[in-house]
């Protein structure tokens, strides 16, 4: 069951690479939040009840509902255009994302990991590299934030892989999630939106040598 959920997660990455509206990104993010909640529900059986409930609620409320809604609010407030505006064609994005998934899959088969379910490793690393790739190839600043959240989702999967032995690390991942995302978005996007109207990365290139 977990495997199926994680494979669906990997498929959402492909969808991410061809989506051309910001709102589609947000729907994918909240769908991923639900997937992560289900994975956590199935996997973290050795954890104490309070901690378990906290993590389930965090993934469901923060990842699936609050963050997408919040980003949506920021988009509306700053009147950001709804297209993603990539630097490269969608077809190339799709190709690269597929390559990333295939390569991490091959890489994971080269290693011998006794203690690790490899599918976690593949999904998490794919999410990380796809996130980095999308950050580099999308024009808008808000898509950078969205892709950062995508990377965090990947990291959360990896932390679930060791969650039963090291519950502390899962909590830390959650901390990173809430703290940084809210900080990045809440304090900053408002200011960036006020000063730099269209939220385009080209306007962030005055500091250089």
């Amino acid at each position, binding site marked *: 069951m977990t495997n199926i959920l994680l494979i669906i997660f990997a498929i959402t990455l492909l969808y991410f690479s061809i989506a051309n509206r910001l709102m589609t990104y947000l729907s994918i993010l909240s769908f991923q939040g639900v997937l992560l909640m289900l994975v956590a529900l199935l996997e973290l059986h050795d954890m104490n009840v309070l901690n378990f409930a906290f993590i389930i609620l965090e993934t469901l409320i923060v990842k699936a509902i609050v963050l997408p809604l919040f980003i949506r609010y920021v988009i509306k407030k700053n009147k950001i255009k709804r297209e993603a505006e990539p630097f490269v064609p969608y077809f190339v994005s799709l190709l690269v994302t597929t390559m990333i998934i295939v390569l991490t899959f091959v890489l994971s088969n080269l*290693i*011998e*990991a*006794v*203690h*690790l379910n490899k599918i976690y490793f593949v999904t*998490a690393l794919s999410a*990380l590299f796809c996130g*980095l790739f999308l950050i580099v190839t999308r024009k808008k*600043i808000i898509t*950078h934030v969205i892709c*950062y959240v995508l*990377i*965090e989702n990947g*990291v959360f999967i*990896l*932390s679930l*892989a*060791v969650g039963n*032995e*090291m519950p*502390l*690390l899962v909590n*830390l*991942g959650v*901390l*990173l999630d809430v*703290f*940084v995302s809210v*900080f*990045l978005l809440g304090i*900053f996007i408002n*200011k*960036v939106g006020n*000063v*730099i109207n269209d939220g385009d990365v080209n*306007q*962030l290139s*005055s*500091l250089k*040598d």
Partner: protein
Amino acid sequence: MTVIAYFVISLVLALLLFANKNKSLNNAMVALFVVLQCAFTYMSFMAKGENLLYFKMDSLGLLLLLVLTIVSIPALFHRYDYIYAETETPRTRGIYYGAMVLLVMALSMAYLSSHIAVTWIFVEITTLSASALVYHRRSAGSIEATWKYIFVCSISLVFVFIGILFLSIALGSVAETNLTYDSLTQIAPKLDTFWLKLAFVFIFSGYTAKFGLVPMYTAGIDAKDKAPTPAAGLFSSVLMNVGFVGVFRFYQILTHTQVQSWASHVMIISAVLSIFVATVYLLKVKNVKRMLAYSSIEHMGVVALGLAAGGIGYYAAILHLVLHTFAKSSLFMQIGHLYMVFKTKDIYQIGNYFTYNTPGAVFLLLAFVCVTAMPPSGLFVSEFLVFKSLFAANYIYVLVPVLIMLTFIIWALGKNIFKMLFTPVDGFDASNITKPSCVETVSQYILLLLTVYLGICPPDFFVNLINEAVQLLTL
């Protein structure tokens, strides 16, 4: 207990500073924090070697804590509104001092922490407080710098976190263990080497955002350019030390495994690339703060080379780090004075500084000698030892290009600094120059003197601290 008390009191002080609007109350609270910081440093030295919850008073942490305390006193008492003083309001002052207090607190805790995840949390807090400082001027440029800084640092911290996760996979089924550095060091030989290597790559590249090495050094440059000068002084000295601590503690685990030589090679590659990048940019840089920021990148490259070479290199790396902290922070504070006189950071519009502010100009000249590691600068001693260790470890093919690049750096820095000191510029209106405070200049001289003193005739107490820190790697 002392650690928790220190943490809570500084947090409360930072919050009060944020909220407070009264100037004299503000100064009183900053003074109170300085007293608290000194008291905490003293208490930590008294409790040397003890384990307190997630913190351990070990020699490396104590040494860097002492350095931080010394540097933070002038940094907190320096003026931060050198230019555009009219745009400063009680609110911006509150945010500035609150963020400074938070930054110093988070740095102290990160130095002393004995748990890999706790270090990570406090490094995260340094990012948050530092970004408030970068944002201080609220211009389009500082927004850009803050955005880049937060974004790159957040990605880097995600990298560190992934590294920690890989480390915990490496632990696998190795009995009951926690993630404190001590217990990790003990079980290090039993860990799976593949996952350790992967963990090192991620943790190292994550911490380079603070340490100031290739690949993640970029955001730090913009941050140092845009932050008020005393804060920039902290960024390019004690904040870089926290990256060093992160790398050092993990490297300490690796020295007990077979991965060590592999990890040193990774560090050497990163260090040489950093020195290369610093050389290229120093040759064309036009902004005086960015020039100093690139010079810090070069020095951190030398530190990483020392750490990677081993032998006497360990000692030299720590010595270089400490001396660089004093030299670079004082130099940044002097740039504040320079900025106050000329109201610009553009090297082409600064000139003939000797006429306008002689004590500051003499300082700049001496600091140039210090920072380019010419005798009698202490940095000469440490840099010489780093090169010696590289030679001894058969890295001569690394040493030769590095020396050539350092020569270029000396030339580039010399060209710019001598231009600022002696060559007059056209169209500079010298009628309404604000005179910098002489107490501040004296404090800069003191920091510079420390660089010379600690390098030439280091006191026993100082040498012992470094040697004990080195023993963490070799025992």
